[in-house]
């Protein structure tokens, strides 16, 4: 089946995007990435600690996987634009997962600053993938600003609570003309399948895989769930009914 995800004219066979945070080791991260089949992974950007430089994450990632730098840690549009420019100048891709998060308790993104940063970054030639609350009106504005996707959260980052904001995400999916990537809050493969069944174009998963007892097996489970959800979406999911409809013939009982 030729069913690819296209973001900013680049095609992906996998509809699962992985975050690289929270793995016990980079070896484990690499194995989970491989098991997931992903072709797009996020990285953060931080100052080097010269006393303890640690390992270089890029040496654990293969060339065929696109790196998506994020602007985590930024609380304003200005900070996010600065970080994106630093990442691109230093040789990271000009793709950016835009996160502008001033709130440490729920890690909810600031919609006004996110839109402002998106406009600046698009004008500067970046491919912008904004993290956002599932607000269909904001999604339209981000799309009009030239964002390559919209990425609504299912539930707050790291909570694993699933599609808590399902109805708003459904409206976004109905109206979007760019891919909708459900990002954050997915805790189980069934949540990912549900997002794809609902019509999301992809999901981004980090904690649920990285913090599993067996991240490699969980990565594989998410891969299968994403494939199942997407295949089911294309196959046409039956409508719910209020009353029973028999599956066996009603007459001819012996």
């Amino acid at each position: 089946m030729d069913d690819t995800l296209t973001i900013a004219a680049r095609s992906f066979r996998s509809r699962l995007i992985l975050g690289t945070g929270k793995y016990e080791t980079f070896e484990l991260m690499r194995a989970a990435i491989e098991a997931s089949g992903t072709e797009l992974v996020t990285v953060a950007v931080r100052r080097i600690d010269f006393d303890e430089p640690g390992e270089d994450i890029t040496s654990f990632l293969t060339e065929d996987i696109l790196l998506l730098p994020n602007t985590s840690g930024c609380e304003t549009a200005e900070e996010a634009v600065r970080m994106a420019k630093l990442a691109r100048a230093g040789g990271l891709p000009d793709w950016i997962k835009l996160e502008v998060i001033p709130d440490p308790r729920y890690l909810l993104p600031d919609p006004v600053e996110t839109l402002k940063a998106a406009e600046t970054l698009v004008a500067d030639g970046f491919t912008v993938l904004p993290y956002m609350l599932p607000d269909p009106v904001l999604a339209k504005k981000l799309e009009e600003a030239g964002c390559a996707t919209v990425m609504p959260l299912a539930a707050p980052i790291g909570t694993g609570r699933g599609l808590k904001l399902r109805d708003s995400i459904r409206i976004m999916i109905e109206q979007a003309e760019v891919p909708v990537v459900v990002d954050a809050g997915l805790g189980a493969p069934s949540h990912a399948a549900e997002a794809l069944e609902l019509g999301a174009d992809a999901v981004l998963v980090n904690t649920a895989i990285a913090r599993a007892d067996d991240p490699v097996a969980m990565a594989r489970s998410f891969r299968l769930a994403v494939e199942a959800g997407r295949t089911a979406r294309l196959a046409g999911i039956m409508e719910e009914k209020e009353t029973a409809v028999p599956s066996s013939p009603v007459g001819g009982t012996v």
Partner: protein
Amino acid sequence: MNGREQAVEPGETVARLLDRLGLGGRFALVERNGEPVERDRYAEVELASGDRLVVARPVAGG
């Protein structure tokens, strides 16, 4: 550099400084006096006394 003092040699470039600090082979992102430095200019840009440098890199993140 990243908020601490770092001696530079006269005419030292960004690339030479990174090498000297053992960061030559690594993915280093550099900002000089608030402006990002393009990777292909690391070997040209000379550092001067009083420059403010930020040296960052990609790390694990979601």
